[in-house]
């Protein structure tokens, strides 16, 4: 019960979009970009999303659309783009051939690094810094995926249709958070700790967050034990949680 178009939105904004945070949080990511000329890569999915990743000064940022990119990777369908993420499709740029070395020497190692943090080896998780970075990146990916599912997936749109305007804070106590902002039943995820919000769902520790993301503990049990604390407009949380249930289906 997933669809390729929604998956493409998740893969672009939630998965590749997490490169922004990888470059911020993981020193080895920013090291890969050190002393490199700024470059922008556009992903243009026919019948799906379109965005540009810009790498400059050891950082990465994502913007909607790809009109101004230096390297453009067109995809004829959401399925083809999803194939890129699965590793079954090799992209062919439509412009920016002189920058192809970046794709091979920096971009691919960066996505490999992202994969290392997102699908980590259990041994790596024993390092507290790795654990924190990995879990934070998961939180950001999940937060953005919630917005994409609420805006694109048919069942997710039903849930979003029941969310009133305002923000939901989803995060770790004294740690990272995402803001799920709703306006006219369209969702936007912002990867920061919001100052104001109408509802919040907070994990008591980064360990609880990870256990929930990995499905090793049950969310309702965590609410019962106080490891997850909900406050505010319960109907917003109820519907965001219904979308959150679908994130697992897409990102499994």
């Amino acid at each position, binding site marked *: *019960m997933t669809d390729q178009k929604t998956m493409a939105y998740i893969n672009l904004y939630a998965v590749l979009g997490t490169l922004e945070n990888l470059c911020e949080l993981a020193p080895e990511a920013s090291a890969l970009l050190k002393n490199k000329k700024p470059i922008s890569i556009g992903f243009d999915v026919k019948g799906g999303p379109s965005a540009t990743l810009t790498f400059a000064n050891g950082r990465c940022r994502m913007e909607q659309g790809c009109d101004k990119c230096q390297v453009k990777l067109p995809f004829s369908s959401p399925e083809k783009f999803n194939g890129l993420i699965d590793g079954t499709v090799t992209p062919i740029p439509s412009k920016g051939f002189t920058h192809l070395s970046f794709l091979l020497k920096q971009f691919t190692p960066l996505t490999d690094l992202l994969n290392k943090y997102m699908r980590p080896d259990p041994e790596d998780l024993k390092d507290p810094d790795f654990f924190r970075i990995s879990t934070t990146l998961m939180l950001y990916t999940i937060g953005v995926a919630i917005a994409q599912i609420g805006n694109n997936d*048919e*069942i*997710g749109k*039903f*849930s979003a249709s029941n969310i009133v305007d*305002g923000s939901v804070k989803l995060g770790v106590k004294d740690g990272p958070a995402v803001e799920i902002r709703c306006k006219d039943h369209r969702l936007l995820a912002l990867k920061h700790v919001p100052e104001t*919000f*109408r*509802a919040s769902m907070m994990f008591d520790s980064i360990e609880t967050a990870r256990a929930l993301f990995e499905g090793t503990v*049950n*969310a*309702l*049990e965590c*609410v*019962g*034990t*106080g490891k997850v*604390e*909900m*406050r*505010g*407009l*319960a*109907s917003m949380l109820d*519907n965001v949680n*219904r*979308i959150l*249930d*679908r994130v697992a289906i897409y990102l499994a």
Partner: protein
Amino acid sequence: MSKTFPLYDTTKSNEWYARAVKVIPAGVYGHLGSAEGLFIPVNRWPRFAEKAQGSYFWDVDGNRYIDYMCAYGPNVLGYNDPDVDAAALEQLKLGNCTTSPGKVMVECAELLTDTVATADWAFFAKNGNDATQGAILTARAHTHRKKLIFFKGFYHGVSPMVQKIDYPGVTPEDVANNIYLPWDNIELFKQTVEENKGEIAALIAQPYDHGNFYDNKYPMEGFWKEIRRICTENEIVLIIDDVRAGFRLDLQGSDHYFGFEADIICFCKALANGYNMSAFCGKDFLKGAAAGLSYTGSYWMSSVPFAACIACINKMKAIDAPALFRKLGTELTEGLKKTAAENGFDLVVSGAPALFYLRIANDDSLMLHQEWIAECVNRGAFFASHHNHFINASLTHEDINLTLEIADDAFKTVAKNHPELF
């Protein structure tokens, strides 16, 4: 001089919860659990009860609570009502779950059809969901149609067809024949019926909008009369889900209270003062369809609940329970509003006094409301965060006064915790 109340210790409740969560999904699943019941924050709430009497229950730590949830409705006369319990015990000595149903089932059906305005017959089951599901099946069997109209904000039980597409375990096919319309919009209802002419089996609705998370709303003037007319003209079965409000507004049914007649009406909570049974009652033209259903259960014709039901209904009649609930509910909610105002809070009360819904409107997130509710619960007045409440007949003026004193202390505590606001 305002009174202060000590905060309850819920250590044993939490210990029992830790045991429960090992062997029961979510520890306590559903509306009595901490997630769906919105225990915010969880450490301020009781998880398990030790005993109950009248308007009170005691948790496993020995804390006493004035109970305004009444087990989410079933406690209508007071826990352990002596008349109902005596009738139940007497029947228990004769027999309960037997191969042939007890004759008390017939007596119970006769009483219901004599009491409920629209009832020509009664079909018995166990839970509210059994009643709403049976009503829908009856409507579909009678009309040979598949579509159903619901008013948004509804809750009609837990069968997949009355859950929503984004609920766990529900498939798009389960709800493919459901049409969701806003409450109180006759024009849209009319248009929808026109667009689906000959396809709609039933409208299932609560008698007024007593959904969760928002102020409850009565129907606008003439709403039900017009809906009744459209349903009749289009041979749509009008089902009233009176599981929650039944007998608390009107012993003849909430449709009677609002001046119209349903084709089928569903009851559960207030039927038997906590003895487990439900019923859907209908007009004669639907009796054959109900008879033909493949719909039954191991305990649906157990005799003890029928005996309890008869005693409960007779007692509700004798004391004019709906009038008592209105009086007690009004006294309580007016007192709560006054206490709130004295402490700088804007407490909005909506719905029927017997089923009052509370909301503090000083902020737009309900966080102040949740804090106040937790302070009340932790001092011994059990309210729910975002659900309508229930009045029971054993509630006294003294209970209400105690509640207002607790509410006052709770308001003062919340105000003290928010110097930026008060």
